[in-house]
C-alpha cells in the first residue's frame, strides 16, 4: 500500500503526467461549459471517445455502447449539440464534474495513460442527478499540442437505466 502511494505520488509530479492531467481537467471544464467545438479539437484525428455498456469489455467494436465515436461521428455529435435542432440538447441539464483520484497506468515521453474517478452532478427542472464513472484517458503528448487518443467512460450504472439529459460525459 505504501509502495503504491509512493509510486503514485512520484509519478503524478512527473511533468508529462502533469500535462496529461491538465488536459483532462481542461476537457472537463469545456464539457461543463458545453463548449463542444473547442472540446472536439482536444482529440487526436484517430482519437476514440467511448461510453461502453459492458463494464469489462475492451472490444468496443463488437459490443453495444452508449457512445463509440471516431472523428467523423464526434463531429456529427458536436454539430447536433450546437445546431439547435435537438430538443434534448437545447434543454440540456447544467453540469459540474469533479475528476480526481488519478492513477498512472502507463507513461512515456510521448504518451500517458491515466485512470481517474469522475463525479458529475447534473441539474434540470428541479431535479439533481449524480453520475459516477471511472475514466481512462490516453493522452498523446506533442509540441503541437497534447491530444486525447482514447477516452473511456465507465459509468457505475452502465448496465442499468441511464437518464438521457442532453450533455456529454
Amino acid at each position: 500500500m505504501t509502495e503504491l502511494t509512493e509510486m503514485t505520488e512520484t509519478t503524478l509530479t512527473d511533468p508529462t503526467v502533469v500535462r496529461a492531467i491538465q488536459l483532462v481537467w481542461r476537457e472537463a471544464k469545456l464539457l461543463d461549459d458545453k463548449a463542444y467545438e473547442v472540446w472536439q479539437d482536444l482529440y487526436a484525428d484517430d482519437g476514440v471517445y467511448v461510453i461502453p455498456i459492458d463494464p469489462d469489455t475492451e472490444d468496443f467494436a463488437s459490443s453495444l455502447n452508449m457512445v463509440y465515436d471516431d472523428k467523423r461521428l464526434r463531429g456529427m455529435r458536436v454539430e447536433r449539440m450546437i445546431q439547435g435542432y435537438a430538443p434534448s440538447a437545447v434543454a440540456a441539464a447544467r453540469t459540474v464534474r469533479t475528476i480526481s483520484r488519478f492513477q498512472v497506468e502507463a507513461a512515456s515521453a510521448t504518451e500517458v495513460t491515466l485512470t481517474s474517478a469522475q463525479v458529475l452532478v447534473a441539474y434540470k427542472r428541479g431535479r439533481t442527478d449524480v453520475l459516477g464513472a471511472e475514466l481512462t484517458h490516453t493522452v498523446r503528448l506533442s509540441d503541437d499540442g497534447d491530444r486525447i487518443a482514447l477516452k473511456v467512460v465507465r459509468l457505475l450504472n452502465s448496465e442499468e437505466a441511464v437518464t438521457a439529459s442532453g450533455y456529454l460525459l
Partner: protein
Amino acid sequence: MTTIDDRAPGSYADLAEGDRVAGQLYTDPAIFDEEMEKIFYRTWVWVAHESEIPDAGSFKTTYVGRQPVIVTRDRRGTINTMLNRCRHRGATVCDQSKGKANGFTCPYHNWSYALDGKLRGIPYPEGYEGVVEKADFPLQKLRTESFMGMVWATFNQDAEPLEDFLGDAKTWIERFFKQTNGYPAKVTGIHKFRFRGNWKIQLENTTDGYHFPMVHKSWMASVDAETADMMSFMNDDTAVSHDLGNGHSVMIMAPGNADLDIDDGAPLQERFSDLVKELEDSGEYTTEQIRRLIRSMHGSGFNLNTFPNVSFSLSFFRVLIPISVDETEIWHMALGMDGGPESLNRERLRIHEHFQGPFGFGSPDDAEGWERVQLGAAADPQMPILVNRGLNRETTSEEGWPTSHCTDETGMRGAYAMWKRMMSDD
C-alpha cells in the same frame, strides 16, 4: 363534464373516447394503479427473447407491471416465468439482471429453489416438520408462452392463448424476423433509460410518424442522404399505419423493406459498399444473398407495436416498463444474426448506437418531448389529448384493418380502444 373527484375507480374507461383521451390518463396515480390490475396483471406481458436465456440454467430478471420476475430455462428446456420472491419472508431470490445458475437461494434464510421454481431446500428443517410441505411452496409461476422466440407471461390463468391475443400482429412478427435472413435472432446489447412520464406516452410514440421529421431533425441531418430518404415518408402515400386489433398496430415507414422476401429492386445504400465488398471477397455468398443481407441492415421497414409493452421497431425491440404514473423505463434491445456475418452484426450495433440510447442522436430527443407532455398534461387534467389525426382519410384495408397514413394516429386509437376495453372489465 365530470371532475376528477367524482370519478370512482372502475369508471376510468370513460376517459378514453375513441379519438381523444383525458390528460388525466397520464397523471392520475389511481388510474395507474388500476392499469396495473386490469391490464398488466391480466393480459400477456412480454418478458424475454429466447436468445437472452439460451442454455439450461440461463436466466434474466425483469418486471411484469411492478412485480419483479425471473425468467429461466430449466433442465428440460422449458421457459419459466416466476415471481422473484421467496415464499418464506419475501426477499428477492435473484439479484442479477442475467446469468447462469443451478437454482436460486434466498440470501436471508437460504431457502433454495430449482430453475423451475420448486422449493428444494430449507435449512434447519426441524422447525417445519408438519408445518411446511416443500411441494406447497414453489416460487409462484406465471403462465408463459412464446411466439417466434418472443416470450410473454401472464398472471391470468384464464387469458386467451398468446397466439390468439397476438392475432393479426403475428403476420408482422413473422415479417419482422425476416431481417435475420434465416439465422436465429439474438439480442446483441441493450440500451436502458428512464423518462419522467407515463408509459402510454411511449406506447403512442411507437406508431407516431408525425413527430419524426421535427423531433429527429438532428438525426436526419447527421445520416447519409439515402438513409434520410428512406425515412422521408411524410409525402409517401404507400407509407401507412394499420390498427391490427387487440391494441396492436403497425406503422410502415419504409414500404420497400416491409417484406424483405420481396426485393423492391432499389439500389443498395452506398454506406454499405465496404460490407458488400467484404461479403463478395469472402466467396461465401451469392450476389442474391448479399443483396438480401444488405437490404436487411436497417431492419424491417416498420414499427410493430404490440399492446401493452413491447414493440418490434425497424431493427430492434422496444420494451417499456411502467415504474410509476410519471416514470417509465425503456429498453432498446439491439438484434443480430446468430451465426451470421459478424461484420454485419457489428454494423447493426453502430446503426443502433447512432439513434438509440441515452446518448444517441434520437432517443434523448424523444425523451425530452415525452417529459414535456407529462408536465403539460398536469394543466387541466380533463382537457383531451387528441389522437384524431387522419380520421378524415382513414379507410379499411382488404385485411379489414383500419388504415391511414403513417403520420396519422390510427395506431394510437387502436391502443386506446384496447385500453378502454380492458379498463371496462370488472
